[in-house]
């Protein structure tokens, strides 16, 4: 449904005329437009419609004989509201006295103390005295609601916020209220711990200290900490966060509500993986391999060693750049590679480069959808990605769109999606066949035969017809949320063309409220491409003077001995690249591996000659670009831990030692250079980006985006999906928890995934495999073991394994078919 049009109404609040948008709840309107605070407990606009559970917000409205709940009454024209009459005052005092009857006097030991809405409301609106002398209700406390959340039921004021969040926002349906009256308590439906990708949000929602963070437990008081705003760079969603800092340590992460990015929520990875900043296993000093062992050395020795290795290798150096790299670091790396070493072999895309023309077409500002578009579009097609794993916070946005704005959600993916049950229609295709599926959908929309294409994709032709019908009938505002997987693999260019044709069929170019939105594989993938960290593009997606090798070719050239050194900037090819075997060979052969890493991930541990400590995201400064083209700014929030140094400065120093000083004295100097050199960033500045970022595609400078070829393209017929023939198709996915930061965070480590083998019940029965058994998956002599996970929704004939985990990753196997048996 398109965005609602705002209509203003006038009302009177405490004698003052106020204009507010029609339909807004009185409590919000009074605060925002009338500067009058109506105290609330249970209401929070971001959870959805009010329930009126606590009665804290009572106000008088002329013409209505009884007091009304200000959170549940929408403003209307001519409404006359009083919030400061003796009646209202008496009601507020009575409600607070009532709420405090059973509330323990825990403030000194309660983690919410000092930032507690109940304290604030009691202080601001309460009567100050209690007449209640009877014993209060008692529950066992403190208890763990999950390994991450502590629950204290005595403190709960039964506002329903957490339960409504679980039921209506995260839709994990785990939290419920049990019993009646004063005995009511919050618990999970089945009594199991509340473990979900977004569970941590209830800590911030709870208006009292009933739900508190266990990792933050008793760490600090609001007056002991400072809040430092920055951006979470653990996934492409780039949620806006605020670090609570005490004594140069990040003690917790809170959301910094941004409607255009995260809608006020965080996933549990973003909320708790900050712990990885302060663990002992983090690399905080430079290391050098000496006698087969990595040993800490001084900076001088490490820089000298790296500079020597690099000048020795010269143009025979390759570089892989990971998604957590900022634009500034990316630009300095291109300077080091192209201008200093004379090598053009650098890449930030795993699995090979895309034709530059296609990359431009996919990133064109006219085709760009924004994150809020997901919530207001007529239809959203989720294509070859799983939001909850790839950019978690978008999952909540899609659910909100479906629930509150009637968005028609359509899904085309190979692995069953968590969003399937909210979708108007979902279709499955064989892993790696996104291209054929997009082509089939495009053909069907164009009125051409699609059945053979659908079959080539391993999809049901009826599904393709149904999706196309839904898309055609939905309306013109359509967003395609697509995963980088669609344009990875050997047929990546054809995948991009099929997607662009599909967008063209739907008329998305120039469509307001619709377009394409990519979920890239790395946090700042988009920014890195735009500043030219690609083998075939220069800064600003211009043509590269010399086209270098892409990530796949770098691996091959290393293995063949054509390249001798490789820089791994925040990248571990054994975790990120599609083929582990290739990179095992490549790194084994490389004579110099220089890694910038925070943890000793497999490639670093086994192959790096020089390791530089990587800054954590709380220590970094620089800019990153959100997949919807929002340029955001990272601010340094804590002192760098240990001996860690600024990485942009290190890259500049390396180039200077080798003999070509980039003359970068501060990080903001590099940012300014980027804004000057990228034509479509023209006029940007760090001040303009500020705390909320700015979408470059909405600015005038976007007109200077390089021209791209227009769809439709003639498509090369896609090859048919491999038919299983007794074996199974191999599908892979990267779990939200597959990250070294999750593994290193003590509180989150229990979520760090081990390999599991997802099978359909029919396949499992055929192979005689039971849920939870150890199974081996093998292809071409390589094998991986994991626990069998039988999933009813899994499509027959396909097995899904995880990638990006240190042991037994799916990247060890060569598809498309694998053999699965009990081990």
């Amino acid at each position: 449904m398109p965005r609602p049009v705002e209509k203003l109404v006038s009302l009177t609040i405490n004698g003052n005329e106020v204009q507010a948008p029609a339909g807004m709840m009185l409590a919000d309107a009074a605060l925002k437009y009338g500067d009058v605070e109506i105290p609330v407990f249970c209401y929070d606009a971001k959870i959805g419609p009010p329930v009126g559970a606590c009665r804290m917000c009572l106000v008088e409205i002329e013409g209505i004989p009884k007091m009304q709940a200000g959170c549940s009454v929408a403003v209307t024209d001519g409404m006359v509201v009083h919030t400061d009459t003796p009646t209202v005052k008496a009601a507020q005092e009575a409600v607070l006295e009532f709420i405090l009857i059973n509330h323990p006097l825990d403030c000194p030991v309660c983690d919410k103390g000092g930032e507690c809405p109940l304290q604030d409301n009691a202080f601001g609106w309460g009567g100050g005295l209690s007449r209640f002398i009877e014993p209060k209700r008692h529950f066992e406390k403190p208890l763990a609601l999950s390994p991450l959340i502590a629950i204290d039921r005595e403190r709960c004021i039964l506002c329903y916020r957490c339960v409504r969040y679980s039921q209506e926002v995260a839709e994990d349906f785990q939290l419920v209220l049990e019993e009646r009256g004063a005995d009511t308590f919050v618990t999970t439906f089945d009594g199991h711990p509340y473990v979900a990708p977004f569970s941590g949000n209830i800590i911030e929602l709870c208006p009292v200290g009933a739900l508190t963070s266990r990792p933050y437990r008793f760490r600090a008081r609001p007056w002991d900490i400072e809040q430092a705003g920055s951006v979470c760079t653990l996934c492409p969603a780039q949620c806006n966060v605020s670090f609570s800092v005490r004594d140069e340590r990040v003690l917790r992460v809170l959301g910094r509500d941004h409607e255009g990015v995260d809608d006020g929520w965080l996933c549990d990875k973003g909320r708790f993986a900050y712990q990885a900043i302060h663990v002992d296993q983090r690399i905080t000093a430079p290391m050098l391999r000496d006698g087969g062992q990595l040993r800490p050395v001084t900076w001088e020795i490490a820089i000298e060693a790296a500079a020597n290795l690099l000048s020795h290798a010269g143009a025979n150096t390759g570089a892989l750049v990971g998604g957590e790299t900022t634009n500034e670091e990316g630009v300095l790396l291109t300077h080091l590679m192209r201008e200093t070493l004379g090598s053009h072999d650098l890449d930030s895309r795993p699995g090979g480069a895309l034709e530059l023309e296609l990359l431009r077409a996919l990133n064109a500002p006219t085709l760009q959808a924004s994150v809020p578009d997901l919530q207001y579009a007529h239809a959203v097609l989720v294509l070859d990605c799983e939001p909850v794993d790839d950019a978690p916070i978008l999952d909540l946005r899609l659910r909100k769109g479906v629930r509150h704005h009637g968005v028609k959600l359509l899904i085309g993916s190979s692995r069953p999606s968590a969003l399937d049950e909210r979708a108007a229609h979902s279709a499955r295709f064989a892993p790696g066949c996104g291209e054929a599926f997009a082509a089939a959908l495009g053909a069907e929309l164009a009125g051409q035969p699609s059945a053979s294409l659908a079959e080539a994709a391993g999809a049901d032709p009826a599904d393709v017809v149904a999706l196309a019908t839904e898309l055609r009938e939905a309306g013109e505002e359509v967003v395609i949320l697509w995963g980088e997987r669609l344009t990875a693999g050997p047929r990546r260019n054809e995948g991009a063309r099929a997607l662009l044709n599909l967008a063209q069929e739907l008329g998305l170019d120039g469509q307001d409220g619709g377009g394409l939105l990519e979920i890239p594989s790395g946090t700042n993938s988009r920014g890195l491409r735009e500043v030219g960290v690609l083998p075939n593009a220069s800064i600003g997606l211009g043509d590269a003077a010399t086209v270098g090798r892409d990530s796949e070719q770098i691996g091959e050239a290393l293995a063949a001995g054509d390249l001798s050194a490789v820089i791994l900037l925040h990248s571990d090819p054994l975790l990120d690249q599609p083929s582990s075997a290739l990179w095992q060979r490549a790194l084994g052969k490389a004579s110099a591996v220089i890694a910038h890493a925070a943890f000793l991930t497999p490639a670093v541990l086994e192959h790096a000659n020089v390791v530089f400590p990587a800054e954590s995201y709380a220590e970094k400064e620089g800019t990153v670009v959100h997949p919807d083209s929002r340029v955001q700014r990272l601010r340094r929030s804590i002192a760098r831990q240990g001996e860690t140094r600024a990485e942009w400065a290190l890259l500049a120093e390396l180039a200077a030692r080798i003999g070509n000083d980039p003359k970068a004295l501060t990080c903001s100097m590099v940012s300014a250079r980027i804004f000057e050199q990228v034509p479509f960033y023209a006029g940007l500045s760090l001040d303009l980006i500020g705390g909320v970022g700015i979408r470059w595609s909405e600015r005038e400078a976007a007109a200077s985006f390089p021209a791209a070829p227009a769809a439709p393209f003639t498509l090369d017929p896609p090859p048919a999906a491999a038919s299983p023939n007794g074996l199974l198709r191999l599908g892979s996915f990267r779990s939200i928890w597959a990250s070294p930061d999750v593994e290193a965070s003590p509180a989150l480590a229990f979520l760090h995934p081990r390999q599991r083998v997802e099978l359909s019940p029919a396949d499992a029965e055929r192979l005689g495999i039971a849920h939870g058994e150890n199974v081996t998956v093998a292809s071409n002599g390589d094998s991986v073991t994991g626990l069998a996970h039988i999933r009813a929704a899994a499509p027959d004939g396909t097995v899904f394994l995880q990638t990006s985990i240190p042991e037994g990753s799916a990247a060890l196997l060569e598809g498309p078919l694998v053999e699965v048996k009990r081990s």
Partner: protein
Amino acid sequence: MAWDPEKDVIEVIRGPQKAGGAGGLYRAFGETLRGLKTTFGQLRMGVDTIQYPEQKIPVYPRFRGRHQLHRFEDTGLEKCVGCSLCAAACPSDCIRVVAAENTPEHRVSAGERYAAVYEINLSRCIFCGYCEVACPFDAITMGHEFELSDANRSDLIFTKEMLLAEPIERTPLRAEGE
């Protein structure tokens, strides 16, 4: 405006040109003698100096000297729960509290939390007593000790152990009616 020397008239008052007998004598010594009368008059009153540090003035019960942290007499647990309210109240920001959680095996205070670190930087403390007022558990009180000089600033950061220890009473307390 330029300075006009004519306007700055300095008036010089001189004594009589001739000394002149008794009047002259009085003018010369009279005032001195008057002053000496006060001086010799004081001799009668005896000595009032306190020979500190051998002698000390007793302090009033409400005197605000060095802080003390307290334990429950029966259980021996610390009264302080590490709530940090004293730190919030302190105008000179000289209290640092880092809390931790009590476990059944390691119980330090009576509540859920306890102060793992409790430090007062006495070189910054202004002895206002706000911390004592803020504490919801009477865990911290102002004692009577004021002899706190030290040769080293960092020795003036008093740790929890120092504050919990029974203070050496070096200062006599003023008795009722004293």
